[in-house]
């Protein structure tokens, strides 16, 4: 952190801070939480709402690296799945309670992010994509082979958390509404944390790196360290999403570590708007909603999702939320 502890020069203030200025930006955390509060009431099912919560947070964590630091990683499934697996294993094999298990899950995915980040951060562009992809595949195959610990191909099972005691209250996690608001607390805390990070000098520094790496270096920032720290924070947030998914589904499928999961989060982030605070959530919401509704309607739902995605890339390259923000701030 030492490199980033001094205040960012005005010239390096993030463009987003200007872009989302005013009401929306100042109240972005309470507003986001307000939206999350009504989600289970307006979506077709609570299970879908919990998935939006989980994948939304996954995309927010990913966006910290992709949207704000400008690094396109294809390996974030490792942190999402890693968090889920570690939480599940902590409960199934070590008999930990839900809260210590979640903490261990987040800590584990942060360590994983530190290792993968340290190995990949010095590459750039397509090489960075490929190195992160390769390293996350290592995690995938480790989980596949260590079947005594992870359940291998069959996925991890046997750690259903039916009840959680929180400050004297008992939350029934088999009740969909209670589960939603229980998990929403974690998403809300994570959102608040991301907002704090983005408002901090460090938030300005990562955007400086994204905008012009050479210039940031010339200004005295330790670019590699900034990138690495952003990578770890991003991995930790994806880990939180992973632990939430483990609690939600009470299984960890091997697919959680698959590169397909990495690509889904890229799509969600781009659909919603990379580099905007709430965009990734909107992306996750739209993506999952289309998938959910269209697959009830026809088994050719992939066609619909594909066409929608192409249309967005062609006509709304800033994503849904990014376009809305740009439209609000039009001169």
């Amino acid at each position, binding site marked *: 952190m030492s490199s980033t502890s001094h205040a960012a020069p005005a010239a390096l203030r993030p463009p987003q801070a200007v872009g989302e200025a005013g009401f929306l930006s100042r109240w972005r955390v309470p507003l986001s939480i307000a939206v999350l509060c009504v989600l289970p009431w307006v979506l077709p*099912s609570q*299970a879908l709402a919990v998935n939006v919560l989980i994948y939304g947070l996954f995309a927010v964590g990913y966006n910290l690296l992709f949207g704000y630091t400008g690094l396109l990683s294809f390996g974030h499934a490792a942190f999402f799945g890693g968090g889920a697996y570690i939480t599940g294993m902590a409960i199934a094999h070590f008999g930990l309670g839900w809260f210590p298990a979640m903490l261990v899950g987040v800590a584990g995915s942060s360590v994983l992010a530190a290792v993968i980040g340290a190995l990949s951060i010095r590459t750039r562009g397509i090489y960075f994509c490929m190195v992160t992809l390769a390293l996350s595949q290592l995690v995938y195959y480790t989980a596949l082979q260590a079947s005594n610990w992870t359940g291998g*191909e069959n996925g991890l099972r046997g750690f259903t958390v039916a009840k959680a005691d929180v400050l004297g209250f008992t939350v029934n996690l088999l009740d969909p509404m209670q589960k939603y608001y229980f998990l929403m607390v974690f998403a809300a805390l994570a959102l608040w944390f991301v907002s704090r990070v983005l408002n901090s000098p460090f938030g300005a520094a990562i955007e400086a790196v994204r905008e012009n790496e050479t210039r940031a270096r010339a200004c005295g920032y330790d670019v590699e360290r900034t990138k690495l720290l952003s990578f770890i924070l991003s991995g930790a947030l994806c880990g939180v999403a992973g632990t939430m998914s483990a609690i939600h589904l009470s299984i960890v499928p091997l697919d959680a570590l698959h590169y397909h999961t990495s690509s889904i989060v890229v799509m969600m982030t781009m659909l919603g708007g990379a580099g905007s605070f709430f965009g990734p959530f909107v992306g996750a919401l739209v993506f999952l909603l289309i998938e959910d509704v269209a697959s009830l309607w026809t088994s050719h739902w992939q066609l619909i999702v594909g066409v929608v995605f192409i249309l967005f890339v062609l006509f709304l390259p800033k994503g849904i939320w990014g376009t809305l923000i740009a439209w609000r701030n039009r001169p």
Partner: protein
Amino acid sequence: MTDRKDGLTFSVSRRTLLAGMGAGIGVLAMPAIVRAQAETVRIGFPTPLTGPFGAEAKDQVRSAELAVKLINDKGGIAGRQVELLVRDDKLNAGEAATRTLELIEKDKVHAVVGALSSAVQLAVNEVTRARNMLYVSISQSDTINEVKDFSRYTFHEALNPHMTTAAVAKATFKKGSKVAFLVADYAYGHEMLRGFKRAAAAIGAEVVGEILHPFGAPDYSTLMPRIRSMKPDILAICNFGRDQANAIKQANDFGLKKQMQIVVPVLLHNQRIAVAPDVFEGVVGGANYYWELENSVPTAKAFNDAFRKMYGGAIPTDYGAYGFTGVTALLLGMQKAGGTDTDKVIAALQELKYDVAKGPQYFRKCDHQAVQSVLVLRSKAKADMKGADDLFEIVANDPGSEDMLRSCAELGFPT
């Protein structure tokens, strides 16, 4: 100034938004109210309509819908009509768990039937077990029989690799035969390998080698010379779906069939149709169902006829039949229990003896595995086929017996 104006604009749109949301809640709540009055019996049916097993999944849905229709035509469950809610699980365990949660929490189903992969069925099993929900699994697996994954709410209608490999080995292995294995390197492949090896040891056949290949591999050409050099009498190919067709096709190209008998644990109707008859010619494999069973089993004839009538002359396939037997068994249990009370239905299913498509079946007490007949089929040469659907000849039809299964003690159940 502009800031303030912006804030105002936002608050107005937010109000509209809230009103819209209120209306949305109303619309969403309506069907729930209507549904409560209709009192239908709802069966959730998650199955991989998209993905590599799509063809099998669509057959399952058609057979399951037939089962529902036949019960409804006879008055349903104690006067209540039955409704099948089909969901696409995308052959993904996480997706299947979400869909199952939706079916239970939103659609308020009375039971779940379905899934077509070991991982997916175990995910559904985990979700239904925690919520005391009836589940009839129609996908092959040995794991689901074991005590660790046992759920008193779950009944396993499909065969398991242990049963099919034992039946195929009995029909093809002899004392002193040399057997080589080509195995897909994932859970189901290893379960099939384990079953074959056990049968080989019991019969006295010799294992001369085993080769693992990655799941979904398109190219087996480097493995074929290695298999040839083992000089086996029998090559057992332990994989599923497209892998099976690819591996057999390439074994054929290398002329392995002239030197050895190729056997598979499960001979798939749809995979056989996907390639030319000469590729599969002579290959022996197990199956839960084959339509020509109608020549010897009356209920198979009735099932085929009902299927032909509903689907314009089409015949049911092996995995399709699971959809029929699974749903029918559950509905018979509900009829016997006189409703959908979970404990009563479990008791009824445990006592149920049923013969709906393939001869007598029942669920074993300890692990709820369906005890049923296992077919062994041989793929016909083109010249011997009497029609486009005449694919296999029935080599053996082993009647259902608990001796085919691993004992309750071995699975970890208290005896």
